[in-house]
């Protein structure tokens, strides 16, 4: 049994049929990349898993249990975390408050803060600043730090490199690699070299469907396949 099973999921925005039967699975400990062009349904797949945009048909199972019909906070309580596109840090909360809020109730907030600041030492310096005043790269660090201390077994990571300078992207990639050591990742990423570098397997999404899948091993050096995926 896979940790996450997405089976023939159909999701709509109003009357717009966005996901037209997405099927994929993620094994425990894996990093799986969802790649594809803009607007093909990658982010909607993550939103459907989280029940932010609940599917109208199909099933999403986590650890063997269906998530369909649950509230998003109940999905989170089961161990599914989210590092969203555009970071979505709480701009009017300080960096420290953003991290504290992400520590699950009952867990040690101070230990969570220490974990976050050890992973991202820059954040310690800005602990008392409103998160909205941070740069894009710093906000991405904070977003990943929140995912880190939220004690998830599965993290859904959406476009972590979007809008960041190449040097910052390297830092983000290193951070995600560190997170992946003890967390399963489902990663949406348009930066194909980055996705292939981080992931064990990939799915290609097009027009709301999975159209290709496989292991990432050797793809980066297989020019013909790399070109096809890039297209």
């Amino acid at each position: 049994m896979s940790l996450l099973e997405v089976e023939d999921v159909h999701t709509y925005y109003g009357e717009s049929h966005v996901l037209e039967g997405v099927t994929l699975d993620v094994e425990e400990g894996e990093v799986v990349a969802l790649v594809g062009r803009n607007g093909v349904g990658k982010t909607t797949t993550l939103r459907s898993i989280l029940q932010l945009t609940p599917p109208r048909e199909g099933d999403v199972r986590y650890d063997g249990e269906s998530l369909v019909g649950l509230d998003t906070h109940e999905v989170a309580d089961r161990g599914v975390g989210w590092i969203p596109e555009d970071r979505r840090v709480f701009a009017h909360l300080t960096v420290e408050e953003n991290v504290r809020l992400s520590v699950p109730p009952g867990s040690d907030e101070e230990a969570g803060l220490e974990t976050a600041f050890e992973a991202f030492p820059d954040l310690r310096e800005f602990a008392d600043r409103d998160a909205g005043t941070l740069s894009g790269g710093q906000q991405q660090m904070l977003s990943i730090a929140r995912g880190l201390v939220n004690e998830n077994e599965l993290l859904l990571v959406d476009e972590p490199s979007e809008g960041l300078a190449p040097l910052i992207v390297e830092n983000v990639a290193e951070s995600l690699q560190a997170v992946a050591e003890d967390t399963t990742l489902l990663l949406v990423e348009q930066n194909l070299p980055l996705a292939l570098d981080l992931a064990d397997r990939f799915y290609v999404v097009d027009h709301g469907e999975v159209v290709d899948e496989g292991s990432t091993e050797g793809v980066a050096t297989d020019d013909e396949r790399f070109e096809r995926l890039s297209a």
Partner: protein
Amino acid sequence: MTGALGTVVEVFVSGMAKASLYAMMALGLTLIFGLLGVLNFAHGSLTMVGAYVAGLVMVTFATGSGLAAVGWFLVAALVAAVLVGGVGAVMEVGLIRKLYDRPPIYQILLTFGVTLVIDELARIVVLFYGLQPRADWRGALGTKPGFVDSNTALLGASVPNLELFELAFGVLTVVAVWAFLTQTRYGLVVRAGSEDDEMAAALGVDVRRVFTVVFALGAGLAGLAGALLMWDPAWGASVPLASETLLPAFVVVIVGGLGTFRGTVIAAGLVGMVDAVTTYFFNEGIITFSGISELTIFLILVGVLVVRPQGIAGLAEVGGH
């Protein structure tokens, strides 16, 4: 005879007491708007219900005088806050929740409708029990202990103890709400949930419950304000208290910058002080014109809207027509 310093002290304390009352009237309104984006037109009616509930507790149960009566007042205020907060929770779950995704006009119309219902129900109840709906409830006013009705000598002034009591009550309430929002985990959850409900939910926050708690808290503050007004002869428990408090509450919230806690407190201070100063000059100083304080409040609103439309602490809108 009061000297110049004494007059300044009297006007200052009066202004601060008025500021406390305005802050109490507006706090719940600004919390609900700032955190949920709902303009609750029923806020004044909830304040009026709080005044009647607190008055009922005082008239029915309060015994003794002096500090015992003040103790009973605190019990009555707590009962009013909890009961009116409960009404707010029912309103949010039963009515408001269904309209979060609709344009604001739906919420305004709904809460305005709730106001009409609550006011009519209150009118029926007070008539049934033989109370005059348009006059202040003298029985409730009469539960005030003698020392609250007397004055204290302060720096050459004779300051009404009721004003000092209102000032202390208002300051404690503002500090308590501020501490809840900034110093507690649930306050953190509330601020996060109101800023980005999807992200908060993805971090495990039950956002719907948070919204209910915020609405109940805002309504409970209206109930608390009502309890305080019930003892003040300038206000008192009456059905028209609903509209009498709603208008100044809206003025304070708009002047402060819609939905900002800090702005609301500053605006309450400004409106209270201007009210006290103009009341002094036009009631006792230059000419006698008792309607001036109400007029002044709305002049402040007009002035702020012209000079700084986003209010004292609000963020400027970009664009528009």
